């Protein structure tokens, strides 16, 4: 099993990925699927910007604009940013803590397939009568009135992928708590692992609220309940609360791992230990905690009352404190370091001012009284794109470039990478900086066009030009990926030469068992400690022995497929289609049948024997 070098046929490779429970392969699956949805969401963004390039444009219709706008937001948050972060977490976190695998390899795979089928299901709506059109927040009175099945696809698709995310979150928590190598204490964990830990905890507590909200929305639309129907005594504000109790922590679920990525990159390319490590950990946990106390700042104008608004305003502003701690720590990490401006480092350096701007407008929006002016204008659009693109997307681009050699064994091209970076940076600021002013001038968000002579022409045109910069930059990135995967230079174990953490001690890409011998961690930045002690490799914590590995399984795929099938039936039973009820049953039969098989068939995994591990050495396969 350890003969990774053997060539496999195409069919065998596909089957391998369909059944894999190896966190490194699941990372690649997340990267491909997340990348696909990122491009899809990007295309939707281009439709939006082309439509808004000039006043009174009729490039797309108003109704189609609503669908595009809704799907852009939903796709980017749930189907692009989250899975791409999961790709990085899966690729890196187990190796960073010196583990051979995640705690639940089977569930890891299940989480991916649930996300994937949920995303496909959501996008099926394009072909089955129209996509959801009530905005990514899908506020209840609007979403209940939406004709067709778009919103039903939204509710069920996000439900399925949300379960996948929850499973992924629990898996990372248990992995980080239980699977750390000897010596890897909590306060020696790399910051990316820490931020994954906190983000996973947020997933654990935030996603159930979304699960409930989506279920109630589905009940209202498909089964005639009255949660959000005022005529029946229902209350639409309940949806808003449930959505934002999930939605606000979701923002931190996205941005904290990005913070972690930058903390790794800044330390590596400054050749310095991260400044203020313990305060970074403290700030991460504090942001996670406060993230749950601020959701109602999205609802200031619903009339919660002055006391509630004041409490949520103050709590929101308080988040600026731990975030500020982080900003200063990053700056001081670079201070006096031997800074190397590689592509990941460029993103990190550009991130600091970009994200800070998003943070500052965040504090402006947190002032409840002022928010009555800003609310539902392009100011808000500019703000959240500064934090989500300037924080999360920069983080993803940086992280993918940084760990690409570890995932695929080849370096990305630096020159093309720099082209991507500059185009993206310029495009990003061109697109969104001007939107602050459009918003302050009164341009409302979520409109499909605007009239001439109101002073919005120039700003929107600039914004559209910027969007094209970002689109071209993404194309350059794709070219880079194709080019280097054909003839890119092979990556060393320590691909950047200055690696500090454990993932840079194993081969690129890592062998399926990660570590031949579990390492002994002797300090923060475990690999750096060994390097400074003049050692070539890690100090092993155990003698060479057999390694226990989990078996692959096709069941995660079928469990998810069953839910996908059942959801189609659930949507169409509303139309009294005769085939709908049998489809629901077949779907649930597939899901529960697969779960039943999983629980009655014992799976003890297999062992890679000591002799094979030693053979690997002889053949020159690095481990």
């Amino acid at each position, binding site marked *: 099993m350890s003969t990774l070098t053997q060539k496999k046929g195409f069919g065998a490779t596909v089957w391998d990925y369909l059944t894999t429970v190896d966190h490194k392969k699941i990372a690649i699956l997340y990267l491909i699927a997340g990348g696909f949805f990122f491009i899809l969401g990007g295309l939707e963004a281009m439709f939006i910007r082309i439509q808004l390039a000039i006043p009174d444009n009729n490039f797309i219709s108003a109704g189609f604009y609503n669908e595009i706008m809704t799907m852009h937001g939903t796709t980017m948050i749930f189907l692009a940013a989250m899975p791409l972060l999961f790709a990085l977490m899966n690729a890196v976190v187990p190796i960073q803590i010196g583990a051979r695998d995640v*705690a639940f390899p089977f569930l890891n795979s299940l989480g991916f397939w649930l996300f994937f089928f949920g995303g496909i299901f959501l996008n099926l709506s394009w072909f089955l009568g129209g996509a959801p059109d009530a905005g990514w927040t899908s506020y209840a009175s609007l979403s209940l009135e939406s004709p067709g099945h778009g919103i039903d696809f939204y509710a069920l698709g996000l439900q399925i992928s949300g379960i996948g995310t929850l499973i992924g979150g629990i898996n990372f928590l*248990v992995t980080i708590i239980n699977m750390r190598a000897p010596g890897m204490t909590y306060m020696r964990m790399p910051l990316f692992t820490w931020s994954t830990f906190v983000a996973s905890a947020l997933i*654990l507590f935030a996603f*159930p609220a979304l699960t409930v909200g989506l279920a109630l929305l589905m*009940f209202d639309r498909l089964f005639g309940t*009255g949660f959000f129907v005022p005529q029946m005594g229902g209350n639409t504000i309940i949806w808003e609360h449930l959505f934002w109790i999930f939605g606000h922590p979701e923002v931190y679920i996205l941005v904290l791992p990005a913070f972690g990525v930058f903390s790794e990159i800044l330390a590596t390319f400054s050749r310095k230990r991260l400044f203020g490590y313990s305060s970074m950990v403290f700030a991460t946990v504090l942001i996670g905690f406060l993230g749950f106390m601020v959701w109602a700042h999205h609802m200031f104008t619903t009339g919660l009352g002055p006391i509630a608004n004041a409490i949520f305003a103050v709590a929101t502003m308080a988040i600026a404190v731990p975030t500020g701690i982080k900003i200063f720590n990053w700056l001081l990490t670079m201070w006096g370091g031997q800074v190397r401006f590689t592509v990941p480092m460029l993103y990190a350096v550009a991130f600091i001012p970009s994200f800070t701007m998003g943070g500052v407008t965040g504090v402006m929006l947190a002032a409840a009284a002022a928010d009555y002016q800003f609310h539902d204008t392009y100011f808000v659009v500019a703000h959240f794109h500064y934090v989500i693109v300037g924080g999360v997307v920069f983080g993803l681009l940086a992280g993918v470039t940084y760990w690409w050699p570890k995932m695929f064994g080849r370096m990305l091209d630096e020159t093309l990478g720099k082209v991507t970076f500059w185009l993206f940076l310029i495009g990003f600021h061109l697109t969104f900086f001007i939107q602050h002013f459009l918003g302050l001038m009164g341009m409302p968000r979520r409109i499909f066009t605007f009239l001439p002579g109101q002073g919005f022409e120039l700003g929107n045109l600039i914004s559209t030009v910027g969007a094209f910069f970002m689109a071209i930059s993404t194309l350059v990135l794709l070219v880079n990926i194709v080019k280097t995967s054909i003839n890119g230079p092979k990556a060393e174990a320590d691909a950047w030469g200055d690696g500090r953490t454990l993932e840079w001690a194993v081969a690129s890409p890592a062998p399926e068992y990660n570590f031949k011998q579990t390492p002994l961690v002797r300090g923060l930045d475990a690999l750096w400690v060994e390097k400074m002690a003049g050692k070539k490799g890690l100090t092993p914590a155990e003698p060479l022995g057999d390694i226990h590995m989990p078996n692959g399984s096709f069941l995660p795929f079928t469990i998810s497929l069953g839910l996908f099938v059942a959801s189609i039936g659930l949507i169409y039973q509303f139309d009294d289609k005769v085939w709908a009820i049998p489809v629901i049953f077949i779907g649930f039969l597939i899901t529960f049948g697969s779960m039943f098989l999983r629980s009655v068939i014992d799976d*003890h995994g297999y062992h890679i024997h000591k002799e094979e591990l030693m053979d690997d050495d002889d053949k020159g396969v690095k481990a």
Partner: protein
Amino acid sequence: MHVEEKLTAETFPASPERATLEGKNKFLGFWLFLGGETVLFASLFATYLALRDQVNGGTPASELFELPIVFVATMLLLTSSLTSVYAMYHMKNFDFKKMQIWLGVTVLLGLAFLLLEIYEFYHYVHHYDHKITSSAFGSAFYTLVGTHGAHVTFGLFWIVTLMIRNSKRGLDLYNAPKFYIASLYWHFIDVVWIFIFTVVYLMGMVV
């Protein structure tokens, strides 16, 4: 100590559910899952509390609820919690047969609870025309209590599957964590019910 190794009462560890790494992971992962379930039920409780007076011209809670049924249901579920504790007690003592018997009793009590709940819902629908579609109160009530009922149903299938699957092989370190977390799940269902009978039924009777 291999997971499938045949053990005796002497070699069986004191905390069999956490004796292997797989067991430790299952144990912790399940507790974390319960933390998430807490928020899930809290969202349903919160929705119910916000909507409980919105009867839309139907019967209000204080005239609807049948406290005797609820009381009997509560007793059944509380007792099933104790019987599953007995099952775990015998598991720790490596007495597989007694563990199976007590799990069986737990399942029977859970089943009785479930039947009572179905009867109760039937009663509300047919005597008071109180349906999930009649009012926001009805929607919130059936969704909250029904979600709990669905958890009970799932728990019953889970425990029965475990009992049948392992009936021939006895206890080992592979299945001990499975039994243990199934019993944790059962207790959690009981905890949720404590809040349902307090917040939904008893508070519903207090006008």
